[in-house]
């Protein structure tokens, strides 16, 4: 009973396959045509080709958290329309194989969740008890992953132009918090407002808000150049 209450409180009910103590071993007999296989293939492609993902993976390695695909990623079936999550308890990124069907979507989800993992790696983030920390990481993930790009917003029928990016980041951070924690909308809005300026301006490890692949590519170039950069400042 305690466990199911905790599951609901921390959003674990959205990820029904994450049963405590029940880890599914990957089977070599799994069919090539399942969602699971497709998820694995898209994940591999994202890790190898997306400049967003490559930068985050490098940054995490430098911070002492080398990401291993088999250990730190898990393709699972999830409830509703959620695309993914970061489980701080098991240090795993969950990818919702039943809700991610396009490579571009996979790239974005991987980036989004890697930002959470990166925050977990570099800071003492109290995911379960400190809503400000949770809000901050959600703001950063919505801001830096491309979630709030103009084209993505238009595809959701959210038409806005001047400073709409910020509006989108606020809204998505709010939604993410409300999906996994039991607090009121007003309370969540207040918390997001409190930490927004700080967290919107924290662009680590990108050094900028990457608005597209070119930006992300430049950020990755800067990251690879960081030794020379800081040595000559």
């Amino acid at each position, binding site marked *: 009973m305690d466990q199911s209450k905790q599951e609901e409180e921390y959003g674990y009910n959205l990820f029904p396959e994450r*049963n*405590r*103590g*029940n*880890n599914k071993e990957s089977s070599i007999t799994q069919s090539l045509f399942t969602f699971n296989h497709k998820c694995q293939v898209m994940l591999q492609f994202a890790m190898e080709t997306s400049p967003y993902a490559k930068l985050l993976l490098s940054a995490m390695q430098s*911070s*002492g*958290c*080398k990401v291993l695909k088999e*250990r730190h990623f898990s393709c699972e079936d999830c409830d509703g329309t959620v695309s993914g999550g970061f489980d701080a*308890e*098991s*240090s*795993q990124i969950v990818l919702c194989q039943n809700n991610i069907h396009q490579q571009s979507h996979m790239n974005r989800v991987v980036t989004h969740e890697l930002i959470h993992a990166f*925050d*977990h*790696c*570099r*800071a*003492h*983030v*109290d995911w379960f008890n400190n809503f*400000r*920390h949770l809000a*901050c990481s959600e703001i950063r993930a919505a801001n830096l992953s491309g979630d709030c790009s*103009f084209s993505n917003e238009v595809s959701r029928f959210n038409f806005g*132009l*001047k*400073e*709409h*990016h*910020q509006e989108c980041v606020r809204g998505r951070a709010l939604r993410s918090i409300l999906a996994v924690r039991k607090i009121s909308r007003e309370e969540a809005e207040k918390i997001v407002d409190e*930490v927004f*300026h*700080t*967290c919107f*301006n*924290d*662009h680590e490890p990108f*050094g900028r*808000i990457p*608005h*597209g692949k*070119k*930006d992300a590519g*430049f950020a990755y*170039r*800067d990251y690879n*150049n960081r030794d*020379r*950069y*800081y*040595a*000559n*400042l």
Partner: protein
Amino acid sequence: MERSGEASWRPPRACDDYWSEFRHCKSLRNCFHHYYTYGTSPSCKQWKEDYHNCKEWEKHRGAEAKDALQKSERNRVAEQRNFTPVWELRRDPPRDWHMPLNQEKPQDS
């Protein structure tokens, strides 16, 4: 902070990088994204100045060009750090990051 003195200094970025940043900054796409994010048009002239200072330093190794470049880049770094973090940074990575999965989860009771 100089490691081995003036002799080993070189610009923080390759000169071509400054130029490509300038071109990227001025592009229509970037102007659009900047307006979409901040509601204003971007200011790109610093990249151009940095490029010229970089080329200038390459040609004549002048102290002025070097100082100007350093000042510009330090400014950029300061702008990126212009906030108080909500969390405390770690000194070491989380202990359980590399632990095998089975060891972490308590047995189902």
